[in-house]
């Protein structure tokens, strides 16, 4: 019985998009809205704000650093069992947190346990998504990632309502029940019925082959640089506006405007990435350059209208580059190494995400205003987009579809197959 070698680009794939949508909402929406619990923890445990902030930081760090583990496990067992286990872990972490008697309990339960749960869900899901789509991959990824934006809007007031009725213990219990839906989302991740590759080579072999893959390494460096500059506005824009004598409420409103245009940017870029012929890398470079430019222009703008326009531009372009960043990967490393590649990518680029904001804060402390911070952030983005120029297929006229049968055979490291473009880098 012959099976497909091409991804279906539809059908059950749209259900996977739905699952990814809910998963990104449940993982990142919960993380981003955790600030609501922050005040309660400070009051309940009588601890300083800095110590309470570590809860979310540990959670994010574990989620990103644990991504390769999630990817490796899903290469071996398939995405479904891994994501379902991740959902159970995440819910368990929150459940145990509701019984916490000290801050350390919360570090371990929410930070470590829920963080590992989240690590096992996000990367495998996105990789699974890439298995289902090739022509409309960017659109699918973009649609799936809109879950993050929408849930950040919805969960913050929802959590506040929960807190006013159940206090933080009861609310954590209910958030745990909410996170359990990750298990249901994981159940939807049917592995696509692509032709089975008998000698996949296992996760370790894939990892080694990836680490020797030139374009992948360059792409990782590019994304790390991009990641360093990417988060800075979300953290420091409000402070920068207050330096310019804006009131807190209009400043927060500007951030909401950026968030809305981020959402629109994700969907538009996803659609555009599939509709426009040619490699997606070019579009990614376009959006990254525009984001870098808009960031660098922030310190120059003084008038409110200029700042609003820049916020919209930044929101749109930074949202636009998000789905494409995930779409380029399958074109580089192939569908079968996607799980491994995505995990590794997340882990390395998280270094940029961790270092960027403190660096920006340090520049602010040294120079006295945010000009240097924003310009440096823009510079990071521009240098990242410069490295994208060096990727293969950048200047070619037609896009490389990842469903080439040759890709599936190159995984076994001892088989040397010379391919027209990627063969030279293969081990």
């Amino acid at each position, binding site marked *: 019985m012959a099976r497909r070698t091409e991804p279906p680009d539809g059908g059950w794939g749209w259900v996977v998009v739905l699952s990814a949508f809910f998963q990104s909402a449940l993982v990142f929406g919960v993380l981003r809205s955790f600030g609501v619990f922050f005040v309660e923890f400070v009051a309940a445990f009588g601890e300083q704000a800095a110590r309470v902030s570590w809860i979310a930081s540990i959670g994010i760090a574990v989620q990103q650093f644990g991504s390769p583990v999630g990817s490796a496990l899903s290469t071996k067992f398939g995405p479904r069992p891994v994501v379902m286990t991740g959902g159970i872990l995440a819910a368990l972490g929150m459940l145990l947190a509701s019984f916490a008697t000290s801050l350390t309990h919360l570090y371990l339960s929410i930070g470590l346990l829920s963080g590992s749960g989240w690590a096992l869900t996000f990367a495998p899901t996105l990789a699974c998504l890439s298995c289902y789509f090739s022509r409309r991959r960017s659109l699918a990824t973009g649609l799936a990632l809109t879950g993050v934006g929408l849930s950040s809007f919805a969960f913050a007031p929802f959590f506040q309502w929960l807190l006013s009725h159940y206090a933080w213990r009861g609310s954590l219990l209910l958030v745990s029940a909410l996170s359990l839906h990750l298990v*249901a989302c994981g159940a939807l991740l049917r592995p696509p019925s692509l032709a089975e590759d008998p000698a996949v080579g296992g996760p370790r072999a894939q990892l080694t082959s990836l680490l020797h893959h030139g374009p992948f390494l360059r792409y990782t460096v590019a994304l790390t640089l991009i990641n360093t500059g990417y988060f800075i506005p979300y953290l420091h824009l409000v402070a920068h506006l207050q330096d310019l004598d804006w009131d807190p409420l209009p400043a927060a409103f500007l951030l909401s405007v950026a968030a809305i245009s981020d959402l629109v940017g994700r969907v538009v870029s996803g659609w555009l990435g599939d509709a426009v012929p040619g490699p997606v890398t070019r579009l990614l470079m376009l959006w990254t350059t525009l984001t870098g430019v808009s960031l660098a222009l922030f310190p120059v703008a003084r008038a409110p209208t200029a700042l609003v326009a820049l916020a919209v531009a930044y929101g749109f372009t930074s949202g636009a580059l998000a789905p494409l960043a995930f779409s380029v990967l399958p074109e580089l490393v192939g569908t079968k190494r996607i799980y491994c590649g995505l995990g590794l990518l997340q882990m390395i680029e998280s270094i940029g995400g961790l270092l960027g904001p403190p660096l920006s804060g340090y520049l602010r402390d040294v120079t006295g205003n945010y000009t240097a911070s924003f310009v440096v952030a823009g510079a990071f983005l521009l240098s990242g987009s410069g490295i994208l120029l060096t990727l293969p297929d950048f200047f070619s006229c037609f896009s490389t579809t990842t469903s080439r049968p040759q890709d599936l055979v190159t995984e076994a490291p001892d088989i040397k197959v010379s391919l027209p473009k990627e063969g030279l880098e293969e081990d």
Partner: protein
Amino acid sequence: MRALPGLLAARAPTPRLLLLLQCLLATARPSSADGSAPDLPFTSLPLREEMMANNFSWESHNISLTEHSSMPVEKNITLERPSNVNLTCQFTTSGDLNAVNVTWKKDSEQLENNYLVSATGSTLYTQYRFTIINSKQMGSYSCFFREEKEQRGTFNFKVPELHGKNKPLISYVGDSTVLTCKCQNCFPLNWTWYSTNGSIKVPVGVQMNKYVINGTYANETKLKITQLLEEDGGSYWCHALFQVGESEEHIELVVLSYLVPLKPFLAIVAEVVLLVAAILLCEKYTQKEKKHSDEGKEFEQTEQLKSDDSNGIENNVPRHRKNESLGQ
């Protein structure tokens, strides 16, 4: 918000200097800004004995009225310590100033003496001085200007307000919670906490580590209750004592048992389990159907091959076509 003490109090500790300053300020125009001493054309100033002897701070406040003021003008003043108070009202009218009747009242009692009246141009000034020592002197002081209509200006003296939490505080059985009361920029002499049994206020005693009262700063108080029981829920009152009065605030405490959030939790978990079961069963069902149809097709295919083989080469073409259609 506390009113700032007037310029007189800041600069003139002795009465003689006060008189001198008043003469210097005699020709200046008065202002109706809050808190600053109005430059009044009062040339003689009777100061009472107690005001000269005490070293309380001075509070000066001013209200401006015109004949066209439609609503009574009120000023709220927060006071926590005994003070000497200097109240001034000025009334501008186009009519005859001599026909205006000026009176002062405290709450609804008319005050007989200690107020001055003076006139400049088309404005009538009146000043009332007194000392607030305890809560009896706190209240509303009003100046009245009666022509045909009566114009009124009121100074309301209140103790500082306390702020608790508007929303009820929610906690769980066995947990501990902290009730906080604070006021802005105030230093009460004493803080007390009361809990209510029905409608009776019972002071909260410090019993056996269950209740701990302390506050890091003078302007706040914290009541920590440990080992909460459901009966501990209800209304709590925090009470601040000042020299010039008392102030209190109400805080609501709700103690829930673990069953309250547990019920929705279990409901949602049951829903997730059902969902997962439904998804997996649905998939098994469709896979079974596919398997059956595939097996059927494979069976047909092998049958065809057998028959084609036996038929010979002439059937190559139809066999190819059949294979292609099955492979799609």
